[in-house]
């Protein structure tokens, strides 16, 4: 396959960025999208040009590092991570736009790499169970109904890639935040901190400059792990419940 790529190039956080156009040839449909970019970068390197910077690591769809907006869609046309997108999803002769996540709370570091540390700070605000090592009771002391365990798992699958934010017209982080809150709040182990968790995490999310939610639903549409939009409903319920109880900081 022969393709035209229009790629966002930006030297660093302070510099202005622009789209640059590159041609790549000999692309196999079995390549992953990132392997296609590897091919481009090998050529750029040999030509003495700066290769395109992009985040990636596990390349099996679980670490959440890869983060490209492809033809306007977070992670591209398939509902998966960029690393699991294959070139068979494109046609010979296609022109493909490649951009970084676009969100106020995710500043660009270089080219297609963005700063997602705001996500870490949301987790630090309460996305955990306070159980120091060694203090845990026997694992079978508290049975967890299977439907609850499965529901927790469904939310715990979030890989923290940030596609939800990139896809949201408001740059909101509701789906990410709600996934962690639902994961922990549905479990008996998460119950003691149920109220403070939701209030603190939501407050941190707001502090980070993520936008508000208008239930556009784009987040759940692009989520490579299929975190459902109802996750946000669940978080809102938890937040109202905690607020009504007068908990929080």
């Amino acid at each position, binding site marked *: 396959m022969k393709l035209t790529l229009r790629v966002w190039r930006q030297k660093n956080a302070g510099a202005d960025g622009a789209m640059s156009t590159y041609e790549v040839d000999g692309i196999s449909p079995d390549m992953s999208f990132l392997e296609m970019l590897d091919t481009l970068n*090998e050529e750029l390197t040999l030509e003495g040009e700066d290769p395109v910077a992009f985040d990636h690591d596990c*390349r099996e769809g679980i670490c959440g590092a890869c983060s490209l907006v492809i033809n306007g869609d977070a992670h591209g046309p398939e509902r998966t991570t960029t690393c*699991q997108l294959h070139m068979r999803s494109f046609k010979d002769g296609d022109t493909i736009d490649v951009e970084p996540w676009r969100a106020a709370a995710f500043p660009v570091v270089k080219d297609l790499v963005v700063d997602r540390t705001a996500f870490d700070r949301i987790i630090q605000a309460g996305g955990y169970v306070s159980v120091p090592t060694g203090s*845990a009771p026997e*694992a079978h002391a508290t049975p967890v109904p299977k439907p609850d365990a499965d529901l927790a798992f469904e939310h715990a699958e979030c890989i923290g890639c940030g596609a939800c934010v990139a896809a949201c017209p408001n740059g909101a982080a509701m789906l990410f935040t709600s996934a962690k809150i639902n994961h922990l709040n549905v479990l008996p182990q*998460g119950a003691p901190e149920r109220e403070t968790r939701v209030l603190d995490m939501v407050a941190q999310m707001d502090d980070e400059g993520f936008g508000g939610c208008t239930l556009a639903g784009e987040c759940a549409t692009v989520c490579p792990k299929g975190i459902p939009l109802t996750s946000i409903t669940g978080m809102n319920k938890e937040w109202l419940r905690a607020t009504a109880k007068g908990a929080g900081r």
Partner: protein
Amino acid sequence: MTTFAAYATGEPVVDAKAPSGPIEERWDKRRFEAKLVNPANRRKQTVIVVGTGLAGGSAGATLAEQGYRVIQFCYTDSPRRAHSIAAQGGINAAKNYRNDGDSVHRLFYDTVKGGDFRSRESNVHRLAQISVEIIDQCVAQGVPFAREYGGLLDTRSFGGVQVSRTFYARGQTGQQLLLGAYQALSRQIAAGNVEMHARTEMLDLIVIDGRARGIVARDLITGTIDTYFADAVVLATGGYGNVFYLSTNAMNSNATAVWRAHRRGAYFANPCFTQIHPTCIPRTGDHQSKLTLMSESLRNDGRIWVPKAKGDDRPPNEIPEDERDYYLERIYPSFGNLVPRDIASRAAKNVCDEGRGVGPGGQGVYLDFADAIERMGRKAVEAKYGNLFDMYQRITDEDPYRVPMRIYPAVHYTMGGLWVDYDLQTTVPGLFAIGEANFSDHGANRLGASALMQGLADGYFVLPATINDYLARNPHKDEVDAEHPEVQEVLAQTEDRLNLLLSVDGDRTPDSFHRELGELMWEFCGMARTDSGLRKALERIPQIREEFWRRIKVPGTGEEFNQSLERANRIVDYLELAELMCLDALHRAESCGGHFREESQSPDGEAARRDEEFAYAAAWEFTGTGDAPVLHKEDLVFEYVHPTQRSYA
């Protein structure tokens, strides 16, 4: 230059920390004998933890909970992305919830046997003991393990054992356990007890007056190279499988931290013990950047086969039952498809070498779920393996519910690593290595679902107990002076190395060298190794290294985000580590576990150990790039599990 193979043998290395006495009591005894640091003094002591995977994440969180000041590093943009996250199948624990005859002793026994009698009994027993606490800890953190309808934890059996002791969270156990550790770490970051440096990569170790006192690290965004000081340094930087270029490791997983520590005096043990995982998706072409593993839990229900006839290129569904060779079931009737990884991998290689492989290039075997779907129903198969099937389909564009999967072995895990004593301390005082970065628990072969167990055992329970002893004996006195000549020298060497990489301006990319080295290692130091092949590799590696420094091209500068520079710098270390791996493989003229020497096999092609000569761990001492290292042997004594040739027939 053939001098590298002419290594010298030095004094034996002894694990002076493992207590004597009944094996069940050793861990308690060590914990009692270890000195403690009083809580008020802990605040004065700083521990550097490099890496945020299962071992590093759990260690950083636990040390901070204990009151130590922790400075932690990871190269990813968030500690949550360490490659432990990709582990799929599960985590072993001797809970015996199934009442199927499991016990701490059986897990200990299985692990020593599975490691083909090249691990240390004391360490393995401790691992089995701690396994039960890990599950308690993770459940309390909210790790959503799979459960039965009664609300109790579900378990499954896993490659190489006959009891059901593997706890799992669908096919994402590593992810869920890592997020548990990450969340515990996040809590400590928020509390101000952990100073977290993400996107910061360790480039060297600082040793002052014979003790590890800090690291040199590069901020990957700005390129700034800085020094960080502490009272002890913990490396939790994972394995070195990426020496092979193609492996199931993450693209950026690397050996720089352990190799730099090795160069600064830490012995490197059993580097040739690498594990080839039998159930990976075969490669499709030269563009391949990594290999994807599919959990070997698939072997619980999938049946592995190839056509009986050579060159049979009919589609699998058109090959009748009696023309298929379910070779694992045929050769190993009692374990069948569940034989340990090394045996399953080599068997796949053998049938492919016979010309019976399937798929592109004949480098694959079938893993067939037709029987499982008929027996359990598609829904049950979907519930158990759905995400793996989806992943397979996404990568190969084939539907495994209708067509058998194709699998082929790939480098997955490295049992070797920095030599550590029972306290997980390396030969450099104050330098500890935990998780895959050390060597001690898996011997020559790791059992399935034991990596997660070991990473978390080391990080949550072992290191936080043993490091006290070191810190109590070396109480904090003065900060390290940044102007200390040792510090300045390490810093200057690091800067020189990066500047040299940037200045060569040759005509080959970092990846081209990495691929070349990887292919060489796969051919000569992969699934089957020979004296002549290893000697060839040992001759070739210095040539590649020489060419590397002549022809490498790294664009850009050091004072910016520069992924080419990161990569090139890691390859510098692979080019030395690879040489040691080949030498270790050459010197160990026996087959054991993941190390298969063609010269040492039984008449029916099984690995033949040579216990009289090789019942030791090989700990290598660095003497200089390209210079022969010194071998220090640690004799392995088996008091409880008597070495036998493994039999899975």
